[in-house]
């Protein structure tokens, strides 16, 4: 099913909350697309060793690394185009972005050394999502992949990923700070602070009292250092924002078919729709198959207790399958047509091998 939707896409963005198997599904989607003859790159943020192992590597590298097609051939999936995989290093991605946009080296070093930069690039909410978009844009511009699959960072709020670029830009908005700073360096090279008007002076003194003057000084220094970078940064952000809303990008939601997970999935779906991103599929991962009915008289009489255990296992599996079926059907109420719902059956064991990924890719 996924192959049809991905026909004209250059990007597939896989969204979903933590622990739903987003990384595994993204990887399987990559395998599928490469088997259809598209040159594919899988970008993940998950450093799980198991995923690396499934691609026959010890660890995923921070740059695209081609996967050995022989790994999948043994499982009956032949990769008709090269498949590469990489892990996104968030900190390094920020550093590259700043180096690229800065006019000179001294400024780069000033920024790197500033504590506010450390905070912005490593901890600020939305920062990971921002560089993930940025990395996607860069990879698209610098390489000739037919499709890039992005496994997004797990988000607390559905909106986080899609609104990250806008939020980071507003965070760095110099317009607001222009009023805040004098913008002049004194002869001693120190940067000054000035608020507009009497109310501003009052605000400044309150802030200084609350936070100490060193804090304000460092903040001022950081804002000054960013001054030259800001305009190209806005341009870049706009460019990848445009790319995400274009027809080239497709979005899918990976979810668990549990009743308790439906609220989250619905939120993600409505955010994609509201923002007019191209919705591709809801992928329900680990759907429990409904067991075929078993007659009690066919159950073994020995050893003692076996028949009872099997009956209980059967009852519970039916209950799970039933609850999941209802949960998945409820998606039609939000307007998701059943042809856009992909059900990946729960496999007997966890996926940590090329065979597992190959099997999953055929289900997609």
């Amino acid at each position, binding site marked *: 099913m996924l192959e049809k939707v991905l026909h004209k896409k250059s990007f597939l963005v896989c969204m979903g909350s933590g622990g739903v198997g987003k990384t595994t599904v993204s990887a399987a989607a990559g395998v599928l697309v490469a088997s259809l003859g598209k040159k594919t790159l899988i970008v993940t943020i998950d450093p799980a060793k198991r995923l690396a192992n499934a691609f026959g590597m010890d660890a995923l590298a921070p740059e695209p690394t081609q996967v050995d097609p022989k790994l999948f051939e043994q499982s009956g999936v032949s990769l008709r185009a090269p498949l590469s995989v990489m892990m996104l290093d968030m900190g390094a991605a920020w550093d590259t972005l700043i180096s690229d946009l800065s006019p000179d080296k001294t400024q780069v070093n000033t920024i790197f050394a500033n504590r506010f930069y450390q905070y912005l690039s490593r901890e600020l909410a939305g920062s990971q999502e921002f560089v993930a978009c940025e990395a996607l844009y860069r990879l698209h511009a610098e390489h000739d992949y037919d499709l890039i699959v992005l496994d997004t960072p797990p988000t*607390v709020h559905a909106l986080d990923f899609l609104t990250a670029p806008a939020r980071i830009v507003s965070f760095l908005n110099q317009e*607001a700070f222009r009023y805040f700073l004098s913008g002049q360096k004194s002869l001693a090279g120190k940067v000054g602070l000035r608020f507009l008007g009497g109310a501003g002076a009052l605000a400044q003194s309150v802030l200084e009292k609350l*936070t100490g003057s060193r804090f304000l000084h460092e903040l001022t220094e950081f804002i000054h250092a960013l001054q030259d970078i800001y305009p190209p940064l806005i341009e870049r952000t706009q460019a990848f924002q445009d790319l995400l809303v274009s027809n080239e990008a497709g979005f899918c939601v990976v979810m668990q078919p549990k*009743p308790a997970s439906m609220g989250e999935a619905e939120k993600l779906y409505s955010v994609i729709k509201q923002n007019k991103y191209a919705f591709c599929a809801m992928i329900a991962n680990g759907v429990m198959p409904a067991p075929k009915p078993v007659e009690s008289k066919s159950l073994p009489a020995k*050893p003692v207790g076996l028949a009872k255990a099997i009956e209980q296992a059967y009852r519970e599996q039916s209950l799970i399958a039933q609850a999941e079926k209802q949960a998945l059907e409820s998606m039609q109420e939000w307007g998701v047509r059943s042809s856009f719902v992909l059900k990946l059956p729960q496999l007997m064991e966890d996926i940590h091998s090329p065979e597992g990924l190959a099997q999953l890719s055929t289900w997609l």
Partner: protein
Amino acid sequence: MSFINTLDPQLHFITGKGGVGKSTFACTLAHYFAEQGFSTLLVQINAEDTHSRYLECPPIAHAFMKVAPNLEAINLDPEESLKEYLLLKLKSKRLHRLLFDNQVMQSFFRFMPSLPELNMLGKIWYHSQEKLPHKAYRYEKIVIDCPATGHGLAFLQVGEMAHKSVQSGPIAQEAASIQEMVSNPSTSCLHVVTLAQDMPVQETLGLIETVKAKRLIGLGLLVINGVWDVLFAPSLAKAVMQSDSNLEWKEVAQRRILKEQEQQLQIKRLLQRTQPMKSVQLPFEPSGEVSSATLELLAASLKSQLEFQDA
């Protein structure tokens, strides 16, 4: 160390990997405390409210809401917490408006590392100190449903981080007292929730090591969530595996056995590596139902395990 000690502190932080059932356990523990007669507060941190489904109450927002006897709930909003903080500090509505309704100030506050988290923790700290007229604490137990692992630990360290970044002034002092509140084992403890599956177990072990190494916070319970009953004892499992593969019941039995065996293996691994942490196991609910009935069952299971291990 007995369970009584483990659950003695006033503040109970709960964390774990995404999707393991942190909220489920937070609600269960709060329900348990309330039933024991403690005046209890259940806190969500800027979350998509999930607690109201367990408590069967209206959506929980940034306002105290009585949800059951002895139990109140709140979902903290960072901006609201900041507003309250400033109002408390500045003691003047005019000054407050000047600072808060100003776009420049908004940008400034966004720039301050960990300020939102600090304000939310600060609010928890403030209410943990509140006393009623007869001198009893307004909240004898506060259960805090923290963000998922990575973010959860960062959340517990904001006091320290904010203190480093501001260094002087009232914010720095408050950051220091918040840090003291979190790291004092007689005031606060951290319960870690996990599933008995490879990846969550891996992450849980890493989390516990980090907490120990950095002495971030006292460790409370290891909560193993979603545990399937063992239906197939080893002898039964062996009989199934050796049976004829054409039997129509084999697939159901085999699927279940593999699941049980994997879980038992992971539980063993967890228990071995987290000694001497106390642990509880919460049962898997096949219907996936989220309601106050589920909560009752889970709280009863928690209670019997606590009493059993205490005896």
